[in-house]
């Protein structure tokens, strides 16, 4: 018995440790020295909170955050980024929310593409108010419906087409979660990278 069983144990363990080394340890080592791309800085408190909202609501199951390089798909032709995403774009992302499904658009450069706070708030409250036929869920629980008299000057109300307004003269007010989430989305920008000769590289392979 020891002969056969130990062959199995040693063989199976070695096999899995080899692939673990190749796909987890070596990339960890190789990518540990990557520096953040220009304009990538630590998230502000609001953006970090917003990132947690993104994570908790599972936005990554429909949205990716990886602009593909030229020649593999047409992400850049779609206006989803001026260059392919690079490892340096994810240095402050723990965990990186790369996503794996594009039921919705790629969002890695959404901060450039749609910078408007107002647009995002309306879209989060009711996506179909802005994009007819959208499959995206609505997030009314990130908002509060209130009497206009109860809205503080510092708070943000959501602009809505008449048919999506709550009625009874009430307004929709963004909660802190909604504002933080938009702050995070606005921070998602893929900026050009400087090359050694001073030129900017839209794409680095």
């Amino acid at each position, binding site marked *: 018995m020891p002969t056969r*069983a130990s062959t199995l144990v040693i063989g199976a363990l070695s096999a899995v440790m080899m692939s673990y080394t190749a796909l987890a340890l070596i*990339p960890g080592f190789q990518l540990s020295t990557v520096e953040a791309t220009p304009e990538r800085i630590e998230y502000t408190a609001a953006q970090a909170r917003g990132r947690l909202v993104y994570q908790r609501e599972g936005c*990554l199951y429909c949205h990716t955050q990886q602009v593909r390089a030229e020649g593999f798909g047409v992400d850049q032709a779609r206006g989803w980024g001026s260059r392919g995403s690079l490892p340096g774009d994810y240095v402050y992302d723990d965990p990186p929310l790369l996503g794996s499904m594009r039921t919705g658009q790629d969002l890695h450069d959404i901060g450039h593409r749609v910078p408007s706070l107002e647009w995002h708030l309306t879209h989060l409250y009711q996506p179909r108010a802005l994009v007819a036929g959208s499959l995206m869920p609505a997030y009314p629980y990130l908002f509060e419906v209130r009497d206009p008299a109860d809205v503080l000057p510092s708070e943000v109300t959501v602009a809505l087409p008449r048919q999506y307004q709550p009625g009874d003269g009430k307004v929709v007010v963004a909660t802190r979660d909604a504002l933080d989430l938009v702050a995070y989305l606005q921070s998602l920008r893929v900026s050009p990278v400087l090359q050694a000769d001073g030129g900017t590289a839209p794409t680095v392979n």
Partner: protein
Amino acid sequence: MNHPIQPPAVLTGLPPKSPGIPGYAWRQEVDRSTRLPVLTFTASAIAWLLIGSAIALLAAFKLDFPDWLAGQAALTFGRVRPAHLHATIYGWISMAGVGIMVWLWARLLKTPLRGQWLVLTAAVLWNTGLLVGVTAILAGGSTGVEWLEMPLTAFLFIVAALLLVAIAMVWTLIHHRVEHFYISVWYLGAGMLWMPFLLLVVLLAPQKGLAQATANWWFAHNVVGLWLTPVGLATAYYLIPRITGKPIYSYNLAYLGFWTLALFFGWTGVHHLAGGPLPQWLEAVSIAFSFMMIIPVVAVAVNFHKTMTGSFNRLKDSVALRFVVFGAVSYTVVGLIGAVQSFRVYQEVVHFTQHTVAHAHLGVYAFASMIAFGALYHVVPRLTGRDWESSRLVNLHFWVAAGGITIQWAALTIAGFTQGLQLLDPVIPFVEIARSLKPWLLVRSITGVFLTAGHFVFAWLLYRNVRPSSAVRTRMNSTAAQEAGFDVSATIAQRSA
């Protein structure tokens, strides 16, 4: 044992008769020892199947009707989707796998299960961890890491459970009464070693930054290939010869299939990040190993097909065999598609599309789950001493499951190609792509309803088998088969004839 273990001179699919252990008596002894642990894991698995199916329908219909129940945070698609994955992967198929594995282990080693209480404790820990974890996801506590969305604590319960089962299995192995370890024992032993390893390294030694993504997909893909696959193949390697009465076509091919799976599969996971912001060598390696997976997939396919040759008529009377063969064929299909799918020309079209959902369900449902259904239809009567109450319902389950998953896979694959080709045309507005998905997503939801109905049928049949009405109990207890101590046949038609 006081002599070295050698494989028998003539390798056949069936283990040699063990010296000095008379007739079928040892089977009853072994089945008595595995009865409670296996039935506990089976019942847990089916409960999670029902929960996971309900959550799946919720998720599916939310994509068809996005404003449905939109006010409930716990039911939003982004929370329900990972909850579904955990309930079905770590719940249904993993727990069913453990139940089947424990039964096979004791039977193939021809010795009663040792450490039954370890396995029972494991079931309690596992259910607790999963319940806490799935609830946490719905409550907004997702970690944001795909396939690992439950909080760490929940996973540690499951790891502890796996280790307890592993201890029981090693303990049982020490007391084996066979001269040769059949190929299924290899697959099961390896799977039992791999799964805790995967969880432990990815949870307790996480990588930073982008390497976290590569480690993540190494893990997630290996759950399918180094845990679900070995258990599924071990089951098929046992049940196909067992029900047809024929030995495996080529034992050497079986060994080849095992070792190439072990050596190649682990390197394929990064194909989930095809085209992503990774060092090129990682993608190249994953593509190469994904293609090399053709070797174990074909080895297994040849073995099963050649073993079945001349016995395909048995599919008519044995529903258990039907489930297992459907699963085995699905393994071939998902394996071959997977091997070529990682190539850039294919990935460029289907990456990020419904094709991935189709492929995932082809693997975990059409392959792993169908084999699990077949195995449970075979195993449970042997533990309870009672046959299934209604052959018609068993058949219904099969056809609903087989038909449902085939249509779902086909619809989502077509949807994936359509979606992918549209994504590649920058002129097509994105909202158009989402709109053209709608009919396919509706097909997905409807087939999901059929699959779920099948699950309820299965759960009902299991309930009736474990706790039949007193009238049924009397009828079954008086059969000659029971009195002879003969183990109950899985051929329903013969029984009702």
